């Protein structure tokens, strides 16, 4: 079981698209597909789902062409779209029954188990659902037939932190059971707990596919530390750490793998406050985005 893309190319009339994507997800592997909004993640996934015909190259799942044999491919796939929109005038259960019926599913044990796990009142009419509730229905629809391959487009968007954790556990379990997962996101934190490898896409081009450990090491974090005294702040500034910004006794320190150095520099200082700053994907992985940029 595996997902493969070979030279997959699709150019839209506005010049955007995806260009010459070649990568694969091996059986039993969880691949995180990272990129800022508009980078081409959903476009890639839509090719896997057979919604788009590529200009060049091809996408296959288990050796079957994703466009021509889409119906056959879908027997093995569970899909969670990036934008959740169910047909109007139905409740959650009716949607799941429709999709289950179209799949020719007999039992509902797994579906009911999922519903219970996410603590969801499935009889709520779709139009009364919040984004997070719809996201749950989407998750049930993707997982309920126990597919061997899961294609998840921004799966945790709209879920509260508690439910995000429930979802992460679910993905880890599926991985344990040998499922193949492709999961897109624009946030590294969202996928780092589940993924074996990470592919990074920018402007429709794949700029890196690396193991999760390499990615974690490459990850650049900004830590904002507020010291009790200006002397402490000045001392830390001189310690060789990369200080990217200072506001009096508050320093913004960039750390990429050198956590030991940070801890050593901070040891013994009087620290008033400490924050981890959230950053754009491009800033977290300056290493990848940056080097590519320089090579051009």
């Amino acid at each position, binding site marked *: 079981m595996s997902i493969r893309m070979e030279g997959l190319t699709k150019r839209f009339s506005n010049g955007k698209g995806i260009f010459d994507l070649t990568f694969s997800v091996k059986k039993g592997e969880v691949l995180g597909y990272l990129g800022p909004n508009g980078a081409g993640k959903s476009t890639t996934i*839509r090719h896997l*789902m*057979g*919604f*788009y*015909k590529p200009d060049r190259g091809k996408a296959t799942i288990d050796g079957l062409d994703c466009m021509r044999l*889409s*119906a*056959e491919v*879908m*027997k093995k*796939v*569970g*899909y969670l*779209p990036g*934008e*959740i*929109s*169910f*047909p*109007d*005038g*139905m409740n959650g259960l*009716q*949607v799941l*029954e*429709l*999709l*289950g*019926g*179209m*799949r*020719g599913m007999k039992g509902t044990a797994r579906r009911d188990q999922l519903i219970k796990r996410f603590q969801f009142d499935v009889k709520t009419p779709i139009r009364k659902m919040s984004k997070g509730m719809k996201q749950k229905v989407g998750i049930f*629809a*993707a997982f309920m037939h126990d597919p061997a391959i899961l294609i998840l487009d921004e799966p945790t968007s709209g879920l509260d932190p508690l439910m995000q954790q429930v979802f992460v556990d679910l993905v880890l379990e599926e991985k344990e059971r040998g499922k193949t997962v492709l999961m897109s996101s624009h946030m590294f934190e969202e996928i780092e707990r589940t993924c074996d490898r990470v592919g990074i896409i920018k402007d429709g081009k794949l700029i890196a596919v690396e193991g999760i450990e390499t990615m974690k090491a490459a990850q650049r974090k900004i830590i904002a530390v507020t010291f009790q005294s200006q002397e402490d702040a000045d001392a830390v500034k001189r310690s060789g750490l990369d200080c990217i910004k200072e506001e009096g006794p508050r320093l913004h320190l960039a750390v990429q793998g050198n956590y030991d150095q940070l801890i050593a520099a901070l040891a013994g200082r009087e620290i008033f406050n400490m924050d981890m700053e959230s950053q754009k994907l491009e800033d977290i992985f300056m290493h990848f985005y940056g080097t590519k940029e320089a090579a051009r």
Partner: protein
Amino acid sequence: MNRALFVSTYRRNLKLFVVFLAITIFYFLATMGMFTGGESDLFAAMPEAMRNAFGMQEGMESLTGFMATGFYGATFIMFLMIYCVVVANGLMSHLVDRGSMAYLLATPVSRRRIAVTQAGVLIVNLFLISLLTSVAGLALAPVLVNDAKLDTSAFLQINLLGFLLFFVISGYAFLFSCLLNDSKHTLAASGLLSVFFFIAQLVANMSGEMEWLRGLTVLSVFEPIQVATSSYDVLPAALGLGAAGLVLYGAAVWIFSKRDLPL
């Protein structure tokens, strides 16, 4: 056809279907109730140009002719055109526009089967409207009209031809729905084409010089008044409409199964 999808789509379209069915039958019966046997009926009071526009010239003295003119000539066509345009849009284009089509395509049911199933709902409902209108007409004519002489054969032929006409009209509406991503464009395209056909028919009927417009509108194949007076060859018209409808639906399904879908 996929059973689960058909049942679900049918259920979601049921309300609109019942509303249109009720309005259609109500107007049918109301028209029938106005029949007085040829003298001083409502339509005789209308200006001649207007009567010509709706094709009201002959055969008004029989009940069948009266219904052909007063109901099948305009009201029936207008109602069902609206029904076709609205429902066809909801079956495909709306789902693509909204993105819900993604869920249907994520199942092992092929695009072709999804399109055929959705089309099936529209065709079945159009057939039921024709069928139930016919049944209501045949059953209630003796109740509503003294001495009712509904020409059963001609009446059924009008309804059959009417169904086939809407097989074609729903066909192009469904074709647009399969072709266009934006629900608004679909409604505009099939709506405007329908309005054009309707107006072309009116104008062609009104003046002899504009007779050529009949060649541009599918409505000219449906000649309820001539069927009522047995002066129309129904078989070739029926076969032509049936074939045209099949071609339109076939093209719609084929296009939908091949094209890119921005879901």
